[in-house]
């Protein structure tokens, strides 16, 4: 209980500071009115529209008004779409979340077996191959991977659809694209920690008890080497959502990333704020969940 209470006390000021930073950045970055007016509009036209939309107020007045609304749960109105910002974001959020979860799934399915395998076959050609591929996988920008996957698996060999999100098969290429870098990272991590655990005394003990090697690896080595992997997965999940911005653009995925991009370009403050706010919340929740999973994996970890 105390743990939850303390977390909450940390979350509120964090979110508050975050809104101020985002508000400032968007305010400086662009003028929504300019992009809303026809090219030949005059300064007069601009003043009229600014006043009509309440954008002629000084920075702090706009910010205070924004916070007042926010406290009551009102994220404001999108200038670009003339609709409540939160509705726009929530409409697209499921698509991004599903894509990120699928990518996480892809990463786990690829990396855990490969990581264990590389560790068990340490210093063999296979190990070097797996380690080499995972370094390459991490180094390749997912933007490029996406375009290459489309080229090979949708245009040259048309197995998958090029883009869109109409059916489950549309998930495959974007999820793989987004998952590859994370898979590479987790593979290397699992390999490292399996190697570390395998040298520990309790593993030797298990073996000397005469347990089967498969049981030793799965129960004693694997579970114990998961702890660092869980940390990385927990920390990386919000980053996956960030990576989704790029992948969504490549695959015409109707998620929140593209909304964020276009809202930044047009200076659509309310929408940018709403998206950043929700991503921040997810980051915090992901961190809390990571802590909780720790406790399940390793009962020695306790919180004061």
């Amino acid at each position, binding site marked *: 209980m105390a743990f939850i209470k303390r977390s909450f006390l940390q979350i509120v000021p964090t979110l508050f500071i975050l809104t101020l930073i985002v508000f400032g950045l968007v305010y400086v*970055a*662009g*003028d929504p009115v*300019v*992009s*809303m*007016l*026809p*090219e*030949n*509009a*005059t*300064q007069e*036209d*601009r003043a*009229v*529209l600014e006043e*009509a*939309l309440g954008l002629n107020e000084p920075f702090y007045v706009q910010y205070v008004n924004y916070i007042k609304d926010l406290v009551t749960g009102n994220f404001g109105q999108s200038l*670009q*779409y*003339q609709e409540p910002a939160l509705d*726009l974001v929530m*409409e*697209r959020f499921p698509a991004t979340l599903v894509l990120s979860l699928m990518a996480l799934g892809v990463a786990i399915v690829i990396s855990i077996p490969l990581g264990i395998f590389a560790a068990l076959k340490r210093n063999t050609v296979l190990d070097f191959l797996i380690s080499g591929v995972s370094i390459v996988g991490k180094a390749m920008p997912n933007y490029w991977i996406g*375009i290459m996957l*489309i*080229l090979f698996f*949708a*245009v040259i060999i*048309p197995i998958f*659809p*090029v*883009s*869109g*999100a*109409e*059916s*489950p*098969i549309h*998930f*495959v290429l974007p999820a793989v694209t987004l998952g590859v870098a994370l898979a590479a990272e987790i593979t290397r991590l699992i390999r490292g920690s399996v190697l570390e655990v395998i040298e520990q005394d309790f593993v030797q003990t298990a073996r000397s008890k005469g347990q089967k090697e*498969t049981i030793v690896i*799965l129960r004693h080595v694997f579970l114990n080497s998961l702890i660092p992997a869980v940390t990385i997965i927990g920390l990386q999940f919000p980053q996956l959502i960030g990576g989704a911005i790029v992948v969504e*653009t*490549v*695959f*015409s995925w*109707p*998620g929140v990333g*593209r*909304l964020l991009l*276009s809202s*930044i*370009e*047009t*200076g659509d403050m309310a929408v940018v704020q709403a998206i950043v706010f929700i991503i921040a919340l997810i980051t915090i929740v992901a961190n809390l969940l990571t802590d909780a999973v720790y406790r399940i994996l390793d009962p020695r970890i306790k919180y004061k």
Partner: protein
Amino acid sequence: MKKLKWLSMTIAITLLLSACGFSDPDQESETSDKDSGDGYELLTFANPADITTLDPQNNNVITTSAVLVNIYSKLVKRDAAGEIVPELATAWEQVNDTTWEFTLEEGVTFHNGDDLTAKDVKFSLERVANDDTLQQYSVFNKIEEVTVIDDYTVQIITEEPDPQLLSRLSTVAASIFPAAYFEEVGSEEFFKNPIGTGAYKFSKWNRDSYVELTKFANYFEGEPNWESVQFTVVPEDSTRVAELLTDKVDVAFNIPTADIDRINDNKGTHVSLEPIQRVIQLWLSTEDDAPTADPRVREAIDLAIDNQVIIDEILLGAATPTRTHVTPGNFGADESLYDTYEYDPDRAKELLAEAGYEDGITVDISVNNYYTEMAEVVGGMLQDVGITANLELLEQSQFAKRLFDEDLAEGVFVGWGNDMFDGSVLDLFREENVTSYANEEVDELLEAAAYNMNEEKRAEQYQQVQQILAEDRGAVYLFQLEGRYGVSDRLNYTPRLDELYVIDEITLNE
């Protein structure tokens, strides 16, 4: 046991994947298309951006207008050649300098069955003329009043003589809504499920995915060709090209120049290049302390640039050199200044020397992220005659803001459109505008042309301005861009100068 678990999981995953494969709706719809029908079932476009709204009066983006033009009708429209022709109005006349009378087509019905009358025209035009929160307000606010004479006659009264009124009325923002229904449900509800008199009815908008329109069989100009039309959103250029190459879309807009050959070489697709309203130009400060205040320096800059090389190398031919912004198809165009350019680097060096800059000069040029590559090539060309161009690269929204605030460098590299298809775009060079150019003769001509109701004389005034600007290098004009459309060979389609997708101009190639 462990082995069994792994095995069953593998089988489950395999089953799931294959199930996905069998239920691919794309494949199903494709086969059914080919089995039955005459090919007019579905037309698909791939656009780089989604529409931003269904309200044509609160929009300022061509890709949105390009879709909405099919849902609503206006009093007048531009045909494929750019001429203003009747749409909902059968005839119009000017009663006096500030009053226009329009006679409406009878028997026109909206998508919801309401009949079109003069009241709808009054309501729709006065909405955009009076509501200052609408993005198109500044284009229509000179309309003082719309008067209903009888059910099929309206008068539009402007505050001042407005020679551009018909141009304004032919834009998508002058769309006519069913007044009674609009007022009954309110604007928010109305634009969730908008009603117009256009050839296609609004059917569905899945944000960031696609907009779907379906045939309106009672369309007043006759039954439309296509059963349904989809405008899909594919933001990434190479993905859009891939969708076209795999036959998933019929038209892909704004394809990268690097992919032109690939699309032409592919069986079943080709690239259509057609001029659009955007003219790339370099504005040079004429304020006293800038070296470019000297007309000889501005001329030297113009002569140092080889327009055709930029067109060939960067745009692979998809542009036409010009010395004016008012290109053919626009009111008041001076065609003698089109499809031509001046290039003479030796003369450029002489001019610089005459102006007292034998040792060269430095010019700062602001450019946005769309045209960076072109600006860099221009910079290289200027370097060859002794002008060092310092490029200030800006992201578009920042560029637009600084441009509005007149806070850019002495050189500004821009691509500028011409929404009204009119010489009045030259008002940019009128006193107190975003360019610093000042010339009394130009000011007088532009002022006179703005209110001149005599078309012939008005065109002459704009032509004079173009000649002065070309001579004086008020701007260094480079070229008019062409729109790049990837098109399926099954279509007979010529993209329009205004970039609107008027669906029934597109037919099947038989």
